[in-house]
């Protein structure tokens, strides 16, 4: 029994030593500052992607991503629309799409960490019948661009390039 007591005490001591090593102090997230920004603008580039062998519409501008995967699955990109939406915090801005669906964009938050500012943007696409097609939340620097692709349209698909925080 003496051995048992000694070994148990040793095990408890080692466990006590090991516990703080496993439970490293997890730093609490620094609360982001809330800048006094009421609204930002978002540019939406609506493209029609097909495989008609016609290349990329020069009116689209500088979007080199269209030449790389996964966009290279289509060889023809035509500019259909280029609206600019004003995003107010907590309000949804909508825009009708060529397939009678609807794009919804919302400025959810603005995060300031160190010297960088991040826009938290919610985006969703509704089908023509009103059902939700896809929805997402992205975090972007000002001027950052993200793409949403997939809705079927006239033998191809719609590709939306959304650049947030444009001047």
């Amino acid at each position, binding site marked *: 029994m003496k051995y048992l007591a000694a070994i148990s005490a040793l095990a408890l001591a080692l*466990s006590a*030593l090991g516990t703080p090593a496993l439970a490293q102090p997890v730093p609490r997230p620094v609360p982001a500052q809330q800048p006094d920004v009421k609204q930002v603008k978002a540019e939406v580039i609506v493209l029609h992607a097909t495989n008609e062998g016609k290349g990329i519409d020069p009116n689209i501008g500088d979007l*080199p*991503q269209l030449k790389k995967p996964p966009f290279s699955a289509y060889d023809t990109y035509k500019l259909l629309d280029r609206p600019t939406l004003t995003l107010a915090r907590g309000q949804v801005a909508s825009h009708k799409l060529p397939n009678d669906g609807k794009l919804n964009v919302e400025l959810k938050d603005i995060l300031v960490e160190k010297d960088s500012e991040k826009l938290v943007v919610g985006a969703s696409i509704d089908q023509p019948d009103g059902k939700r097609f*896809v*929805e997402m939340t992205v975090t972007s620097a000002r001027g950052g661009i993200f793409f949403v*692709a997939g809705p079927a349209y006239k033998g191809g698909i719609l590709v939306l390039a959304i650049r947030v925080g444009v001047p």
Partner: protein
Amino acid sequence: MRWLDGELDEGEAAPGQLEDATAARKLRDLELVGSVVRERAEGDPRADGIADAVMAALAAEQAERHEAKVIPLAERRADRAATGRPANDNARSIFALAALAAAAAAGLFFWGRGGAPGSDELASGDLSAPMDQIVAERAATPAPEAALFTEPAVAPQPEARPPAVEVAAVNFGARQGSVFYMGGSDAADGMTAVVWVTDDAAGGRP
């Protein structure tokens, strides 16, 4: 019935029902049935076989008991005394378990001290460093072709850059979809995100 089988005690009176015609008929029937059963039972060889088998089994069991080794109790106690351990001594087993627990605790201790890369950086309070490191590693490793549709893929980049756009959450609903990260127009741009939804009406994946 007992009268027929001869089981009546001496004091019991013989039944007077024999005078009754119905009782006399029942008695004759019983005698007839009894004689038939006796004939068939005596003619069946299995009856003797069962008895022989039971007796043989009993004899075998008895012989086995006689062959068992009998250990005198005094001798048994002497052996116990020579080993110095009581019959319920489990100290060695408990000792082994305790040693195993101590070894596990020591292993966890050293693993916790040196086996968790990045824990020091987390403790320093620099939140951006681990995420940047993860993004840099993912950007430097081209995603295999088969994994493009199972998890967000990162296109190979010449150098690691902080992402300009990150997808925090996406809901494809009942459809299938993928999230891609790819480079921007020039080195100054960060990575951009592509949310690609597979619309069956459009013909499938990219």
